[in-house]
C-alpha cells in the first residue's frame, strides 16, 4: 500500500486505542451531553493532597474551629466494567479542616479489597447495592465487597468509614490513610455496622446491622470500644438503612420494602408491598426484649432525625419520607448514568408522633427534604430544629439549598443557591459555650457547577435565609458525598 494510506490506517488505529472501550465512550458522551448535574457522580482518579481553600465570601465566624469529615462514592467507571448505582462507587473520605479562619481540604480513597481487585482488573466486578458484578469478583467475606463509602464516625484520632453490610473501616483522622477493618469482638467479626450510629445523651453510641429480619444492636463507648451487642428479631424483614433513638428507646421504622428472595445485586432482594403499611418498633434500651409496635400508612425512607420523648411519654422524630422505593432502585442508577430523569417525587420531611395510647400519626412539613440533621447537644432529647437539604424537584434531581424546619412553630427557614449549586448534607455545629438550639452554625459543602469546583459554606442557624456567612472555594470538584461528622 502507499505510504500515505498506511499512515492513515496507523493514525486510525491510534485513535481507536484512545477510545478503546464502550465504557470510555459512554463516559465521554456523559461528560459532553450529560445532565448539568453530572459532576455530582463524576470519577475522581486519585487522592486529593491537602490544599488550602480560598475564602470567596464573608468571614469565618470567631470560635468555629474543627474538622468536617465526609464520606461518599467518588469512582464508578472503569474500562472493563462500571458501577451502575450511586451507592456502589468507591468511598472517598474527605476532610475540611477549619482553623484560624482558613480551610484546608484533603481527600483519600478508602483502600478496600474491592478497590484493589477492581484496580488490578480495571473493571468493577463486585456485586453491590445496585451493581450486578460478574464472575471475576473476589468476595470471600462481606468486607471484601465493601465500598466503605457511606458515612463517618469519629473515634478520637481515628475515623471509621461506615458502609452498610460489613465492618467499619478504620482510617487515620490526620492523614486519612486506611488502616484496617474494625472487629469489635472476635466472635462478632464481620457483623454489619451500618452508616447511622446514634449518639445518646449519656455519651454512648448505638448502632444496628441487618440480615433479613434480624438486627444486631451495637452499644459502644464514644471511643469505639464495645459495651454490648445483641441480636434482635424484628417483626419484618424490611430494607433498613437508618434507625433512631430517644434517651431511653431505640426506634426501628419497618417500611413495606421487604425481603422477597435471595438475589444479587442487594436491592433486587426486596419487593414493594404497600398493603403492609409501615410499622414502627420501639425497643427499651435497658431490655431489648421489651418492645411496642405502632402502625403508620405506607411510605419509604432512607433517613430519620434524632427522636425525643416528651413529659407525657409521647415520642416524636422526623423522617425524609417518600411514596415508594423507586429512588433506591432506579433514581440512584440514573444519577450514575449522569443523564435522564429520576423517577417518582423527592422525599418530604414529615414528623412521626407515637402516643402512649398506641396511636401513631404523621404530619408533613410540606417541604422537599433529605439528609436531616439536628443539634448534637439535643440528640435523643427534646428539640425543635432539623436542618436538611432542599430544592430537589422533577427536572433537577439534586438539592440546591438548605432549610431549617422548626417543628415548634411549623415554619421552614430556607436558603437556595439556585441550580448552579449541588448542595450537600449540613452538620449542626454548636457555638462554643452556648446552650440554645439556635446558637449553632451549619457547615456544608456544595459543588459549584458554574465554577466546576467544591465549596464549603458556613451558615448561622438563626439567620439561614441570609445565605452563608462564609464560603471557601477549592481548586477541584469532588463528587457529591453522603454523610459527615464534625470533630471540634
Amino acid at each position: 500500500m502507499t505510504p500515505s494510506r498506511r499512515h492513515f490506517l496507523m493514525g486510525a488505529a491510534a485513535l481507536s486505542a484512545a477510545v478503546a472501550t464502550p465504557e470510555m465512550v459512554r463516559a465521554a458522551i456523559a461528560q459532553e451531553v450529560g445532565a448539568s448535574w453530572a459532576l455530582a457522580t463524576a470519577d475522581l482518579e486519585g487522592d486529593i493532597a491537602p490544599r488550602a481553600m480560598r475564602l470567596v465570601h464573608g468571614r469565618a465566624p470567631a470560635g468555629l474551629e474543627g474538622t468536617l469529615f465526609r464520606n461518599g462514592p467518588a469512582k464508578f467507571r472503569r474500562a472493563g466494567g462500571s458501577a451502575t448505582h450511586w451507592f456502589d462507587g468507591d468511598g472517598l473520605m474527605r476532610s475540611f479542616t477549619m482553623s484560624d479562619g482558613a480551610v484546608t481540604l484533603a481527600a483519600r480513597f478508602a483502600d478496600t479489597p474491592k478497590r484493589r481487585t477492581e484496580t488490578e482488573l480495571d473493571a468493577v466486578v463486585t456485586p453491590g447495592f445496585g451493581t450486578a458484578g460478574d464472575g471475576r469478583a473476589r468476595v470471600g467475606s462481606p468486607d471484601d465487597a465493601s465500598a466503605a463509602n457511606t458515612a463517618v464516625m469519629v473515634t478520637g484520632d481515628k475515623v471509621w468509614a461506615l458502609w452498610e453490610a460489613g465492618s467499619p473501616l478504620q482510617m487515620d483522622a490526620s492523614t486519612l490513610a486506611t488502616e484496617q477493618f474494625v472487629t469489635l469482638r472476635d466472635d462478632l467479626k464481620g457483623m454489619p455496622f451500618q452508616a447511622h450510629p446514634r449518639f445518646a445523651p449519656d455519651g454512648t453510641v448505638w448502632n444496628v446491622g441487618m440480615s433479613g429480619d434480624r438486627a444486631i444492636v451495637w452499644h459502644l463507648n464514644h471511643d469505639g470500644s464495645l459495651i454490648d451487642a445483641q441480636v434482635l428479631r424484628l417483626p419484618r424483614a424490611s430494607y433498613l438503612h437508618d434507625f433512631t433513638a430517644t434517651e431511653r428507646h431505640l426506634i426501628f421504622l419497618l417500611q413495606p420494602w421487604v425481603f422477597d428472595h435471595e438475589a444479587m445485586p442487594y436491592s433486587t432482594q426486596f419487593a414493594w408491598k404497600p398493603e403492609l403499611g409501615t410499622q414502627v418498633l420501639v425497643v427499651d434500651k435497658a431490655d431489648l426484649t421489651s418492645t411496642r409496635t405502632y402502625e403508620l400508612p405506607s411510605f419509604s425512607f432512607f433517613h430519620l432525625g434524632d427522636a425525643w420523648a416528651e413529659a407525657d411519654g409521647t415520642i416524636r422524630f422526623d423522617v425524609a419520607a417518600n411514596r415508594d422505593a423507586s429512588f433506591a432502585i432506579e433514581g440512584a442508577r440514573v444519577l450514575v448514568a449522569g443523564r435522564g430523569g429520576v423517577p417518582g417525587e423527592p422525599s418530604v420531611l414529615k414528623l412521626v408522633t407515637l402516643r402512649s395510647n398506641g396511636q401513631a400519626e404523621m404530619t408533613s412539613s410540606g417541604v422537599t427534604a433529605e439528609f436531616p440533621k439536628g443539634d448534637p447537644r439535643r440528640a435523643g432529647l427534646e428539640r425543635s430544629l432539623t436542618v436538611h437539604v432542599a430544592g430537589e424537584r422533577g427536572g433537577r434531581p439534586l438539592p440546591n439549598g438548605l432549610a431549617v424546619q422548626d417543628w415548634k412553630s411549623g415554619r421552614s427557614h430556607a436558603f437556595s443557591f439556585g441550580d448552579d449549586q449541588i448542595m450537600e448534607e449540613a452538620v449542626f455545629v454548636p457555638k462554643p459555650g452556648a446552650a440554645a438550639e439556635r446558637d449553632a452554625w451549619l457547615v456544608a459543602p456544595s459543588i459549584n457547577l458554574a465554577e466546576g469546583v467544591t465549596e464549603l459554606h458556613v451558615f448561622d442557624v438563626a439567620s439561614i435565609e441570609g445565605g452563608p456567612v462564609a464560603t471557601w472555594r477549592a481548586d477541584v470538584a469532588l463528587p457529591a458525598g453522603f454523610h459527615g461528622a464534625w470533630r471540634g
Partner: protein
Amino acid sequence: MIRTALLAAAALLVAAPALASDPASVALTFDTGASTGAVMVALYDEASYGGGQPVRAARIDVAAGEHSVTFEGLPAGDYGVKAFHDLNGNGRMDTNPFGMPTEPYAFSNNAVGNMGPASWDRAKFAIDGATAQTISIR
C-alpha cells in the same frame, strides 16, 4: 532360558511402575496471623474438591510452632487445598451470629471465592515432583 529371564528382567526395569519413578509431593506452608490453635488442611483432587472426602488431610499445630505439612506419595496432577485456622482449638470453624466465618480460612493459590468458597478453577494447582506452596491465612 537364562537369556529370556535376563531380557524379562531388563524389560521390568525399563518399564518401572509409576510409583517408583513419579513420586509427587507437596509441601504446604501457612503464613498465619495468630499463633494459637491449629490450621486444619485438606487436599482435594478435582473429583473431590466440590464436596467429597479429601485425598489427604492434616492438623498443623500452630500453637506448638508448626506452620507446614508435606503430603507425599501423590499421583502427579491437579489439586486444590482448603484450610481454616482453628484459632481457639475447638475443632470447628466458628461463625458470627449471621453465619459468616470469624476464623481465617484460605485456599491454594491464595484464591478467593465469588460469594462462596474459591472455585476449583481458581484454587487448582499442579503437583508434579516436589511441589511447594505458601498460603496466607490471616
